[in-house]
């Protein structure tokens, strides 16, 4: 017998949506934990309302959590949800336009009152207006079922209502064939000291699960089955970008055997890193919240001057304020890591929306010839390695380094094979044997051009550094014309020398020569990967080249790109990497640019690749 309610697919995209108070985020993270235990790959993204306390039931107060799960490799949180759990009319209204055709919608009906509909801005009940035609809708009065399940625990009405998310989670677990034991264990630990709340939530979870299994409606509730992912053997965990970044910075401190001083000023969307690092004291991490962005970078520079690893962090507008001080770190040749969680701009722009806004600012954004190495993280787990890389370059070459990330990466999560930290090379900085004396203070390492990191407190080596141009040999102030020429060239060569230490650029997925190179950087990796993989599977000669190192580029990048007929650069800006490729490699790429504040959809990139391939003269001879 064919079971019309059993869906099988390689992967599925699920979205939970409700009011901030509905516990949607918690529901999402618990679902992810169970997904991981079920052996599946996943990518997630939480979508919080921009307002801190938006009025309940309104569209701008909707909080959502999206998860893409399945066999993998899963590199994004998914384009269009196939399953939506909507706790109220506003959640339905906000998410309906993004759903996949024929998606399954589970509606919590108790919130579909005339007042609830009105607050969501519905003049007519969407269940009756035809707005849901073509979707598979399951209506469940979750609130009443939950109240029923927890009534023996004597909770207040509002406390009982708060168990709703676990009831719904129980049902979703059943739908996906996931166990609920791990969630019960989590609840037992989380509410160890509150018997009633703990038992009520566990009861709600079980009731939701049993509802799927036994209720008369049961037959009508669809089930989903996806294969397990084929992960390489190892120990795994789930990781968010902000967590990976914090761990990476702390790991870099351990690898360099130096304290990390993180000096920052609160700004959206960079603050999660500040909060996470504030909890990492035991790793030799100190967190200083400065009076402003300028003070934050300056304190980080002061910390580096004192021998610690100075790190500052911000987003576009705050980075702009730090610009002059970054120039000082370049002139004084001090290590510094600047973490830029990019967001939509200019000015205050779209603080909560993702944009690859600051590549120009990182590469070009200073007075005079002031080059800085720039690295970018591409996925939540990759933030770990990107952070270690940034610190390594900063210390090896005695230079500030930009580390580009964004709000999407910070909040998105994925499974991660826990790396073996002992396998990472130690992070070294140039030093000076005090017996060599002051004459050797500015003798640079010939390979990295880093000057010795001599910190105050070192006997016999007192000297001065600063923002004025210095003599290339002695380090004393110098206004000499030839010396400034030589120092300017030295600073350029120093940053260029980073390319001698970074790995050759590889092709992430697809063809390593052929018709089209798709070149990306940063958080678009997941989408570009899926898009290129999808097209490459059809036999098209398309490859993804995703850049970690944006300044300088890997030495082989030019040669690698020349192996393709064309280059396409999809970016969430108006073409900043495209400019850089033209500038540095004389490559003339086609562009796909999007600045809506929303990540690319795989389908958008696929369409652009197809269009590019179709425009190739030889395209007609190839089956694409």
């Amino acid at each position, binding site marked *: 017998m064919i079971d019309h309610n059993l869906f099988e697919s390689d992967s599925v995209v699920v979205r939970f949506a409700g009011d901030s108070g509905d516990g949607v985020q918690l529901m999402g993270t618990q679902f992810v934990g169970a997904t991981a235990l079920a052996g599946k790959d996943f990518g997630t993204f939480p979508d919080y309302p921009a307002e801190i306390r938006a009025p309940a039931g309104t569209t701008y107060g909707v909080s959502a959590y999206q998860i893409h799960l399945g066999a993998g490799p899963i590199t994004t949180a998914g384009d269009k949800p196939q399953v939506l759990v909507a706790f109220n009319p506003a959640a339905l209204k906000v998410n309906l336009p993004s759903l996949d055709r024929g998606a399954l919608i589970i509606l919590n009906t108790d919130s579909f009152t005339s007042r609830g509909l009105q607050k969501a801005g519905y003049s007519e009940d969407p269940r009756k207006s035809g707005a849901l035609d073509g979707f598979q809708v399951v209506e469940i009065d979750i609130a009443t079922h939950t109240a029923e399940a927890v009534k023996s625990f004597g909770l207040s009405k509002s406390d009982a209502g708060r168990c709703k998310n676990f009831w719904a989670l129980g049902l979703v677990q059943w739908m996906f064939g996931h166990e609920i034991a791990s969630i019960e264990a989590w609840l037992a630990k989380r509410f160890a000291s509150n018997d009633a709340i703990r038992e009520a939530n566990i009861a709600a979870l079980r009731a939701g699960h049993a509802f799927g299994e036994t209720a008369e409606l049961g037959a009508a509730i669809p089930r989903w089955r996806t294969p397990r992912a084929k992960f390489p053997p190892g120990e795994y965990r789930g990781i968010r970008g902000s967590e990976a970044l914090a761990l990476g910075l702390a790991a870099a401190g351990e690898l360099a055997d130096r304290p990390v001083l993180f000096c920052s000023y609160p700004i959206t969307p960079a603050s999660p890193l500040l909060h996470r690092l504030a909890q990492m004291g035991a790793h030799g991490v100190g967190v200083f919240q400065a009076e402003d962005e300028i*003070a934050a970078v300056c304190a980080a520079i002061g910390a580096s001057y004192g021998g610690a690893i100075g790190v500052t962090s911000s987003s576009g507008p705050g980075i702009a304020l730090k610009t002059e001080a970054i120039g000082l770190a370049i002139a004084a040749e001090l290590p510094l890591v600047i973490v830029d969680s990019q967001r939509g701009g200019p000015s205050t722009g779209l603080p909560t929306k993702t944009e690859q806004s600051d590549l120009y600012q990182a590469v070009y954004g200073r007075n005079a010839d002031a080059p800085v190495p720039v690295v970018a993280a591409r996925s939540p787990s990759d933030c770990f390695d990107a952070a270690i890389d940034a610190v390594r370059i900063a210390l090896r070459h005695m230079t500030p380094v930009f580390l580009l990330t964004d709000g999407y990466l910070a909040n998105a999560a994925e499974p991660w094979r826990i790396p073996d930290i002992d396998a990472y090379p130690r992070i070294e900085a140039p030093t000076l044997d005090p017996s060599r004396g002051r004459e050797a203070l500015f003798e640079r390492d010939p390979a990295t051009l880093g000057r010795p990191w001599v910190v105050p407190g070192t006997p016999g080596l007192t000297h001065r550094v600063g923002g004025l141009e210095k003599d290339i040999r002695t380090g004393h102030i110098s206004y000499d014309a030839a010396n400034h020429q030589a120092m300017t060239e030295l600073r350029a060569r120093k940053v260029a020398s980073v390319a001698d230490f970074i790995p050759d650029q590889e092709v992430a997925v697809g063809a390593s020569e052929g018709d089209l190179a798709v070149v990306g950087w940063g958080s678009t990796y997941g989408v570009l990967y899926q898009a290129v993989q999808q097209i490459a599977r059809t036999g098209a000669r398309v490859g993804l080249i995703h850049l970690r190192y944006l300044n300088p580029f890997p030495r082989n990048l030019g040669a690698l790109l020349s192996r393709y007929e064309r280059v396409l650069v999809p970016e969430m800006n108006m073409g900043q990497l495209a400019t850089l490729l033209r500038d540095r490699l004389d490559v003339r790429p086609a562009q796909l640019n999007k600045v809506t504040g929303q990540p690319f959809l795989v389908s958008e990139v696929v369409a652009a690749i197809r269009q590019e391939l179709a425009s190739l003269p030889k395209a007609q001879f190839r089956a694409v």
Partner: protein
Amino acid sequence: MSAAIDSKLTPKDFTSEQEVRWCPGCGDYAILKSVTRVLADVGARPERTVFVSGIGCSSRFPYYVETYGFHTIHGRAPAIATGLKLAQPDLDVWVVTGDGDGLSIGGNHLLHALRRNVGLKILLFNNEVYGLTKGQYSPTSRRGTRTPSTPYGSIDTPVVPGLFALGAGARFIARGIDVDKQGLEAVLAAAHGFDGAAFVEIFQNCIVYNDNVFAAFTEKEHAPDAQLRVEHGKPLVFGEDGSKGLRLDPRTLSLSIVDAKERPDEVLVHDETNATLAQLLLGLGPPEFPVALGVIYRNPAPRFEQEFVARHPTQMKRTAKIADALRQTSTWVVE
């Protein structure tokens, strides 16, 4: 011979080989001399001492002292010095700034370094003018100051550095005059000995752009009547033979001048821990009143960087391994 005597340094040991580039006759020379003398006197070690500055004439100071030095960017020295102190709380860190650097472009950082009580000795050279950029008026210039940028006279009310510092929550506020060797050195030594943010305003003559701007109280012939040298526990007297004293008018909550010889018991006694008295003293000035000099306010509190380390969960030590942190969550094994 003991090691202590062995290692006694002289002012010359604190003088760098760099050619000094202030205008001839600039008050900065005298300050530099006093600072190097005090460093020698208090037994400072060159390698443990750091001078951090911003931009301006005063900010060239680090080049001329044989210690570690960081000539940074305009206004930011307190922020950079704060970071240095977080990395190395036990260094002897001096910040050298001016009225433009410290109170205009860098006012915010000065405010926060003071309120946090970061262990910095902050020397603010006040000459009421922008020297390095050729003579524009500054935030301490008096109303009506004519400069190239204010040809009809400035119209803004000047900031009183000491009152700014007090308002910011500074725990040590003192004043000295560039060429008053004795008074200045006493103040610098006191600042060095203070365990926290020590704010010292130094009246510094810019001979080129603002010559004699402080003459009303620095000139020898006016000095006795125009300078009030405060000392903790001593009566607030000034004038020839200490003939004048300050008393509090309780009706107006203001200071007035009394004959200290005739009515000695009405004369206030200086209490350097009294912020209200400090506020009254810092607000005094010619023509009616003398200018208060010396340690006007000293009221110790925990030093920021010390607290930063003390309250840090592991005193900034690395006690945990990243390998463990990576596993502080639920993990699963794929065979």
